[in-house]
Each structure stands twice: as structure tokens, then as C-alpha cells.
């Protein structure tokens, strides 16, 4: 059984943290992952930086640009993560855009993920149809869960379809936006959270985009299985460095 399934079976109010690998410093990756686990985070999304992150707002863009300047590459990230399973046991997901994965070689990428102990992938610009037609068997061969997104604009029919082909969780984008562009959830979001909760999907949902404090975390997890924090965490890293990670997590959980 995949670590993601186990975690989602046992835990509610799952807290997942996104960070950009290679930021603030090239070799912070392992330190950040270990401190996140020690601070009680349930799941981690390791961001593979890309030059042109279309779905991301300024915070994650800037961290990606910096990470690339620092020298981060796909091969480098894998090298850093080589022994990660000796110290870390929570689910690890790689989130990245498709082009770097394509250039690395999809099969080789998946194989290395399995060797390292990566549990799943989130690739925002790999559409469902392409995944199904060309990559599903490869992902499955290496035991990787592919996570799909839904948004407030996704039709009910498509949500049902995405649920039917998902196996792990559904990444529920909180609002029509890129990452990091929200402050607080209004009635619209709450209604959307409720609407999805009522659909009784087979896969649990984890909310992402716009979660930045205890309040938004609680609002999201009232309806969904968990929530993902990205930009707010990166801002925190930017301001306080890697040594103050547990303070940030405490603030969210409070």
C-alpha cells in the first residue's frame, strides 16, 4: 500500500506543505523535508523548479527562478533525495511541470522516483487525456500516484470523470487563480467546498491555493480531507530561513 493511501486512511486535517527544491539554498532540500516531518507535517510536495511555471503566482515563480540560479536540476534533486527514506517516512510527492520531466525521460523519471521512495506526482500541465493515453501505464508500473486537479469551474461531469481515474486524492484548487493570490476564503469558496463534499467522491480531496494561516487551513479542512500550503510557506522561508520551520507549522495547526 502506498504511503499516501495509508496516511489518508489514518489522518484527518492532513497538512501538506509545498516548497521549491533548491530554495533558499541549493542544498536545503533534505533539511527542509526533515524539519517538516519533525514539525508534524503529514505530507510534502517537493517542487521541481521550472523556468516558466504557468500556474504559479509571483512567490513560487521567484523561488523557482532562484532555485534554478542556485543550480537546481532534476538530476541534482534526485541526488539530494537519494537517502531520504532513511530519515523520512511521511508521503513525498514531486510537483513539477511536464517539460523537465519529458526531457529527463518519463520512464527514467518514474523509475528514479520509485527507487528513492517518492509516492506520487503532481504535474499541472500534463492534462488528463494525455496522461491516460500515454503515461498512465508507466506511472503505475513504478507505483506512482498521479494527482489531478479540479477547480471551481470544473463541471460536475468532469469531476466525476477525474474521480474515476484518480487513485489517492484529488487536488482541489480553492479558487480560479494561480498560486499565492488569495487572502482568505469567502462565501463562494465555502459553497464550492460544500458542493464538492456533497458529491461523495471516491477519492478524498485536499485543498490548495490560498491557504496561508490557521483560519484558512481550518476553513478548508472543515469540508476537505486536508490542505496544502505553498506560497505562505515559501514567504516564511524567505523571511525566517530554514531554522524556523516548526514555528510556521505550529501557527497553522494552532
Amino acid at each position, binding site marked *: 500500500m502506498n504511503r499516501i493511501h495509508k496516511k489518508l486512511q489514518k489522518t484527518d486535517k492532513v497538512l501538506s506543505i509545498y516548497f521549491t527544491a533548491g530554495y533558499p539554498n541549493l542544498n536545503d532540500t533534505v533539511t527542509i523535508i526533515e524539519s517538516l516531518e519533525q514539525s508534524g507535517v503529514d505530507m510534502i510536495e517537493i517542487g521541481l523548479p*521550472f523556468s516558466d511555471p504557468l500556474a504559479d503566482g509571483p512567490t513560487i515563480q521567484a523561488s523557482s527562478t532562484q532555485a534554478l540560479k542556485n543550480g537546481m536540476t532534476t538530476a541534482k534533486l534526485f541526488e539530494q533525495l537519494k537517502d531520504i527514506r532513511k530519515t523520512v517516512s511521511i508521503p513525498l510527492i514531486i510537483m513539477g511541470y511536464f517539460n523537465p520531466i519529458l526531457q529527463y525521460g518519463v520512464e527514467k523519471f518514474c523509475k528514479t522516483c520509485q527507487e528513492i521512495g517518492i509516492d506520487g506526482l503532481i504535474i*499541472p*500541465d500534463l*492534462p488528463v487525456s494525455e496522461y491516460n493515453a500515454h503515461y498512465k501505464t508507466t506511472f503505475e508500473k513504478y507505483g506512482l500516484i498521479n494527482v489531478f486537479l479540479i*477547480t471551481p469551474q470544473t463541471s460536475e461531469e468532469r469531476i466525476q470523470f477525474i474521480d474515476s481515474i484518480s487513485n489517492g486524492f484529488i487536488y482541489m484548487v480553492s479558487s480560479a487563480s494561480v498560486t499565492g493570490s488569495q487572502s482568505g476564503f469567502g462565501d463562494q469558496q465555502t459553497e464550492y467546498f460544500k458542493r464538492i463534499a456533497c458529491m461523495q467522491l471516491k477519492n478524498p480531496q485536499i485543498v490548495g491555493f490560498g491557504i496561508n494561516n490557521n483560519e484558512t487551513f481550518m476553513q478548508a479542512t472543515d469540508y476537505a480531507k486536508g490542505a496544502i500550503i505553498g506560497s505562505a510557506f515559501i514567504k516564511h522561508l524567505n523571511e525566517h530561513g530554514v531554522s524556523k520551520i516548526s514555528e510556521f507549522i505550529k501557527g497553522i495547526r494552532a
Partner: protein
Amino acid sequence: MKLKVCGMTSGENIQAIASLKPDFLGFIFYEKSARFITSDIPELPKSIKKVGVFVNASESEIIDTVSKYDFQVVQLHGDESPEFCSSLQSKQSNLEIIKVFSIKDHFNFKVLKSYESVCDYFLFDTKGKLPGGNGYSFNWNILEAYPSTKPYFLSGGIGLDDVKNIHQFLKSSASKYCYALDVNSKFETAPGLKDFNLVQQFKTQILSNTSTMNYNINEHGYYGEFGGAYIPEMLYPNVEELRQNYLKIMAEPDFKAEFNQLLKDYVGRPSPLYFAKRLSERYNTKIYLKREDLNHTGAHKINNTIGQILMAKRLGKKRIIAETGAGQHGVATATVCALMGIECVVYMGEIDIARQAPNVARMKMLGATVVPALSGSRTLKDATNEAIRDWINNPVDTHYIIGSVVGPHPYPNMVARFQAVVSEEIEWQLQDKEGRTKPDHVIACVGGGSNAAGAFYQFLNDTDVNLIAVEAAGLGVHSGESAATSALGKEGIIHGSKTLLMQTDDGQITEPYSISAGLDYPGVGPMHANLFRTSRAEFISITDDEAMQAGLELCKLEGIIPAIESSHALAVFKQRQFKPDDVVVLSLSGRGDKDLNTYINYFDL
């Protein structure tokens, strides 16, 4: 085009190659050859003709061998006389005869005459030390002088590397009677042992182009292997709405009527097809300029923005966003938004805003908001990213007017269709002027590829029309400062489309460079990626310097100051020769007003 594979020596290898179904398999019965066959020939599929190859063998030896192996064809590679062929023909009436001639730098085609009636095909091979199998090719242009109508085989050192040359050759008149390609030594792992994969690749690459092929989009949104819609789920509803409606809307009579009327009364179409007499004299060919520079706002870009603003209105959109590099597309978008009274936001890289001040001012005068793209390299690719982000943030009321044949399906196809008016006009204008609808060559510069898509559109599947796509080589293709995507790019994903793009080994998109801001894009539209991959179009790279000189030359010869983008297309005449009676149409995509500063600085005016 037929394929003949020649010179296998082992049964197993013969069977492997036969499974690829070439049209002919040749077996060499010449003891001195490294490919002399001693093994048995296995049963072969009936569709493959078996050819026995002989060098000065006696008639009885040939007849015995033919009956032993049941050959349908013999290839005579020595000094066999017409009388010899005639005698063989009379004794074996069902046997087809290929007579071989070797060509070095010259060939006296008169010798063919006496063989005309006594053989079925000619075969042209490279003259070398050996009777065949020398492993290098002759200058195929010699065949321009081929006086006969007999089908011939082209042979001599043909390899996988020649695919592009072959496609080129097949477009030329020299290939009119070329019936088959004959391959041998370049496809071997050892003499007599053919490499299955190489032959397979060669076959698909040759056939993909010579059988009737569709170079337009398929029902899945792909041009060959390029295209698709690699977009985040957040964009799915917008792109899907467009995909489901664009063809329907474009087919509506009142849409067409409004589009055509605006193109006529507002843009000033049809744009003239102008015979450039002095330029033609300079390059000794017939050059027509398709004058997109005379359109309102000074370039072809407006054809697309007119189409898309009408599309946006019919989709009920209230707000328009666009990206721009040099500002041409931004101005064209701001213009149609003013025309329709719709809000307009244009994203432009911070660096481009600084270097294209007049166009920024134009957009502002036209009522658009110009938003600087501050991320990444702060140029066109980042402006495109920002526009896409805006669209993600405004999924309901906003339409994104992309400025070229790039982006997720259906954009490349929709933009190409709006630009297709260019080649539609070329057809009837050429009919008036030359009494024919098809030019011999069409030349256009390629940034994303929209003016080229428009100029090529009607001729895509007519392989008699040679398409020439011109990319910006900047300071030189391999200088590190270039935008020659086809030469430098690899397959990947940019702005929602699988295509060729310039990137690092790690898949990070790199910054291109060209003196012309409109060609300064790291990718190329998927249609062009496919035209490149299939060799349907010829791709030529032109440096800054070559383009600037060609631009100045047009000023002096024709009194037309071209956009620097279009100057790249003009520079082709220095690189490539055309025949005196060739009809060459060049897409003069824009006027040079916007580039005056660059011209001033470059020429120290």
C-alpha cells in the same frame, strides 16, 4: 516513391528486411562484391519484386540464375550493350530489365537513347572505383538534364542523413521521372547485413512525405506529433469552450460576412500582390511581394485580431488580454478592442517596454492597459506566461487573443485559419497575373509562425509548392545568441503546446536573441514543427546582419521599408538561388516604421 534495398547476404537478414515490405529487394551475383550472395533466398512476400544484380555476366548465367531464384527483375551493372539487353529481353519476355549508368560530375545523357527500347528502367549510380556500392552520392542536380520519360532508380550512397535532400530533390523537376530509391551500404552493420531500424526509419520518413499527407491539423489537435493542449486544469474550461465553438462560429455566415467586411473596409484588404521588378532582376527570378505591410497597423497581425475579437464577442466575453513582444500584436489587439469598445489588457516584458516605447504609446492611445511582465527574463515568453496567468485568474469573462500560431489547441489552428486569407488572396491574384494559382516557392519569416502559416495555408498539401520558412539566427545559429528554433530546438512543451523549443538539457526554456523583436521567441508553432520534422518546408536561418542588409536593399530597389522580421525573409535571395522562370511569393509581413530606431542605430543613419 518506391524503395529498393540491395545487397543482403544472409537468409535471416533478408527475412527481417522483407518484413518492412520494400518494393524491391536486390541480390548481388558478382563474385568480387563484398555483398555477393551465397546463401539461399527465403520465400518472400509476393508484393516484393526480387532483383538479380549482375556485372557483365553471360546471358546463360543470368537466365539460369533468374529461373533458379524466380527473379522478376534483373539489374545490369556492367558494360552490357543494347544488343545484349535486347537479346535477354526477347528470351525472357516477363523479365524486367534495369540498366545502370554511373555518374560522376557529368553525364552524357545521349547514351541512354539506344537503351530506351530494350530496358524497363534506368538506374543512376555514383561512378567510383567499383561497379556500384561506392558509398557516396553524385550531384543529383545533373538529372535536371534527364532527356527521357523512362522511370529511373536513384542510387549511390543514399543514407538516412539524405532524407532532407531527397525531399528537396523530389520537389525539383529533376525528379519528375524518379521512380524508386535504391539503398545499400549506408544501411549496414557490416557488408551485406542490413540494419532493420535504419531501413525502417528511412522508409517511414520517405513515405511520410511522398504519399499524400495532411500537413494541417488532425481531429485530436495535433500536427503530426506536435500540438495538443498541455494546460493546467484551471484553463481547461476556457480552452474547451473555445475548442468546441471556434469552427462552428467561424462557419456562421454572419461571422464570415462581418470578418470579410472588416478585412476589406477597416484593414484595407486585399493586400496587393506586387511584382517586384527590380528585385526580380537583381536575383534573376520572378519575385512577388505579398504586401501585408500595407494593412492597417502595419502588419499581418491584424487579420488574426479581427477574427479573434469577433470570436470573443460571440462567446460573450467582456474583457480581452494579449501578450506582445515588439508591440505589433499588442497594437493590433488594442486597435480591435477600441473598434469594439471592449476592455483590453496587454502584457509586455519589462525589457520590451523599454525598447519599444512608440508601440507602448500607441497601445495607450488606443485605450489599452499595458502591464509589464516582471518575471523570468521579462520578454515575450514571460509576457505570454503572465497573460496565461491572467486568464487563469479570470476564467469566465475574459478571452485571450494569442498573437501567433502558438499555444494550446485550438489556438494554432484558429490563428492559422484567420491568417489563411493571405494565401487565399495569393491564389486568385496569381491567377490574374501569371495565369496559375500556385507559386513555385513561398517564403515567410517565422517567429511563432503566423504570417508563414497564412502564406502557406492554401498550399500545405500541394507539395509542388515549395515552402520556405525563415528563422532568425541572431548573431549566428551557434553563437549562443540566436532564435533559430528548428536548428537549435528540441521537442518539448511551451505555452501549452508540444512543439520544438529552445531549452537546456534539463528542460528549462532558454532566452532567444534576435535583432527583430517579433522573431525573438524560443518556440515555433506546432504546424511549423511538423513542417520541419517532415521536411515539407525548407528551413533557412538568417543572421541579424544578413537581414539588415536585405532590408536596406529592398528600400533601395523597390522603395519599401520592410519590418526587420520581413527582412529576414528577403535575405533568402542571397542564400538560395531560384530559376529565372520560378514564381516566388514572399510574405512581406510588416512595414519598417516600428523599426526605424533599430535601422538608425544599425546603419548609423
